[in-house]
């Protein structure tokens, strides 16, 4: 049992792009992921095994860095939804592409999450990341107190604040653009999922047809019968190979473009959340400003303090946010590049 993780900055001791989720072990209902990462200094690897709860622990720690300036401006790399061994239809829909295939897409998604966290200039400094990746003991499961993300309240306020006009043109554009893009990517991902699902169905149907053809084979010396049987066998083989082809096409699609679209869509969601947080800060700031103006002289000083605090926070957030947005553009391109490239083997 680990003690309380110290919230001090630290340097990550592994290469961020060397992090790999190599395996998944199934033990009844629990899934354990094996994570391998290369040491920065010298040779050697860290092998750790983590469950999904450990990932959540890590995420919680990242969220709760209240004292890091501008943390709210960070686009937090998205963690995929919880996997289930015997998944219900609803959770399958939620997981989308990650539910298809054996476990490969899901492992890749987790891997991307860890890599993005480790590569992030602010996030990688959190000790929890180091602990997660290197400690052989499972990290603690205790609930972390401060959590800047209260999803429920967000949902309620979202309606009011989402449309709040921005003071900065850069950010207003970004918000609008993000809204459109999120919708489009989500739709594209869903449609592509349909395509892949249909491809799998075709593969299955081909398999059935192939088996049915095999049943048509009859023994006998009658030349007609033999001719017919031969034809059936040949055709059965053809359909068998069609089935294999279709299966591999579908698999390929999932692992490349499907995964890419899924990651992209979740990343844009994360960006949206970040922008929303910033908007909330903006609203706070504007409220504080109004309060200062309206305040009676007695309270004025206090209000000024509040306003100043809000201002600083907002500026920090915006600063970080701007950086994040700019670097996002460089983030998503490699995804698609890889996806398209490898997706063309169908």
């Amino acid at each position, binding site marked *: 049992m680990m003690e309380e993780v110290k919230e001090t900055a630290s340097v990550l001791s592994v290469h961020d792009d060397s992090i790999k989720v190599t395996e998944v072990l199934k033990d009844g209902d629990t899934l354990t992921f094996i994570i391998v990462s290369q040491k920065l200094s010298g040779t050697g690897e860290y092998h750790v095994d983590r469950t999904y709860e450990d990932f959540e622990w890590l995420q919680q720690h990242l969220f709760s860095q209240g004292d890091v300036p501008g943390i709210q401006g960070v686009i937090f790399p998205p963690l995929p939804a919880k996997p289930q061994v015997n998944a219900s239809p609803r959770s399958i829909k939620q997981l989308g592409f990650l539910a298809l295939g054996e476990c490969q897409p899901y492992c890749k998604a987790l891997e991307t999450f860890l890599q993005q966290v480790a590569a992030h200039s602010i996030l990688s400094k959190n000790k929890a990341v180091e602990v997660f990746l290197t400690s052989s003991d499972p990290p603690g499961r205790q609930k972390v107190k401060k959590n800047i993300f209260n999803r429920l309240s967000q949902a309620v306020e979202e309606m009011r604040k989402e449309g709040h006009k921005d003071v900065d043109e850069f950010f207003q554009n970004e918000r609008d653009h993000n809204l459109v*893009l999120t919708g489009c990517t989500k739709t594209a991902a869903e449609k592509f999922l349909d395509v892949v699902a*249909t491809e799998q169905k075709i593969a299955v149907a081909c398999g059935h047809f192939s088996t049915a*053809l095999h049943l*048509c084979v009859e023994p006998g010396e009658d030349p007609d019968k033999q001719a017919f049987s031969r*034809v059936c066998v040949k055709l059965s083989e053809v359909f068998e190979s069609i089935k294999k082809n279709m299966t591999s096409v579908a698999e390929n699609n999932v692992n490349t473009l499907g995964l890419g679209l899924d990651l992209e869509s979740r990343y844009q969601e994360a960006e949206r959340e970040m922008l929303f947080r910033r908007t909330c800060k903006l609203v706070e700031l504007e409220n504080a400003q109004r309060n200062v103006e309206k305040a009676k002289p007695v309270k004025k000083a206090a209000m000024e303090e509040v306003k100043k605090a809000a201002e600083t926070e907002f500026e920090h957030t915006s600063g970080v946010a701007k950086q994040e947005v700019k670097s996002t*553009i460089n983030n998503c391109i490699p995804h*698609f590049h890889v996806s398209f*490239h490898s997706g063309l083997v*169908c």
Partner: protein
Amino acid sequence: MTHTAGTFLFSLFFLCLASSVEYVESSQPASLAAEDISTNSNGPKQDSLFDDDPEDLFAEATEEVSLDSPERDVLLSDGPSPAITPITPPTSVITPLAKYTKCIFFPVIEEEEGGDSFDIHISVSDPEKVGEYMTSISLFKRNEFAVKRRFSDFLGLHSKLASKYLHIGYIVPPAPEKSIVGMTKVKVGKEDQSSNEFVEKRRSALERYLMRTVKHPILLKDPDVLQFLESSELPRAVSTQALSSAGLLRMVNKAADAVNKMTIKMNESDAWFEEKQQHFENLDVQLRKLHTSVESLVCHRKELSVNTAQFAKSAAMLGNSEDHTALSRALSQLAEVEEKIDQLHQDQANADFYLFSELLGDYVRLLTAVKGVFDHRMKTWQKWQDSQMLLQKKREAEAKLQFTNKPDKLQQAKDEIKELEGKVQQGERDFEQISKTIRKEVSRFEKERVKDFKTIIIKYLESLVQTQQQLIKYWEAFLPEAKAIS
């Protein structure tokens, strides 16, 4: 003149290639040739020995304008390169040809543009279809007939043939089925995809039906068939309502037959028949299974095409909203490629369907005809046995009468016995005949079956290969775009 019942008027054109033809005046009855009529080759034979009598050959019975259509099935696979020739203007001579060795028949339906210039009109809401044919074998004399036929005419032809030939053992190809849903849709005038599909489905079904019928050497000579193929006006077939009630009647008869089968215990002297019956039972089961598999495959492929189209649209939208130019372009390109692929999938689905699924369906229906023929044999046997038993009884009665003094009753009994003896002999002959016919028919059927399947499978595989090649081409064209993203 309008027809009250709404159906399609199908125009039939056919091209008769004769390698050895005897032209007989229409007054003489058709004569059976002793030589074996080859049904194996579809293409024209090089050594033609027909008479040079061009006047008698060319005849057609239509006034339509023929239109060109790209989607024609050229059924001549090994003839010389076909050239497209429009139909010649009408000449009024119609000379039925009494005997054909090969008859290639193209019933074709197509959207016509002439509109109301024809007398024969069904009803305003029904599209009138104009037939058109398109092929010519320049080396051979052509006999072209174009007639208009309604769907009920086809059904009528089938019922006539069935009543004439089924009970003596010939396998009569079954006609395509009526479809109330499909026809209603078309009557209502819906111009959508499904009604077009229905028309196409029906057209190709009729085409195949006629091809099978004329491939049969005996049926080809039947005067009803000839009349169907040639005369411009066909007496209205029994009203279609009656035909569908005939269907009901058939079902009732089938049930009665099933009961009879259980009671008829035939002493099968010939193991061949038993084996064949078993074989056909198995085949029936297998083909039905295959048919279901193919249907599900077709359905999924259509779904794939739809989904691909939707994905293409969403990818295009995504491409539009993306800032990064290279990525945006790549996405738009992807959308285009996917659209093309969607069309490919659609075509493939059609190929799956028309080649395979319909073939299997046809054979499933053919097998019922085959089974019917076997049943008729059993019935013939039963009749023979019955008359034998009756004869036996009468003989016993006669023997008894010998001892009584009733000369006229005796005479009557003797007469009856003579009659019955005749009947028994006839029954035996019938039975022999039907057995022989069935043997021949079955072997012809099997040969046809193998040939049919082989041809279709080859066509299908070719289409598969083509689709794959096209797919590869599309993706290869897209690859440089994808590489250019970064």
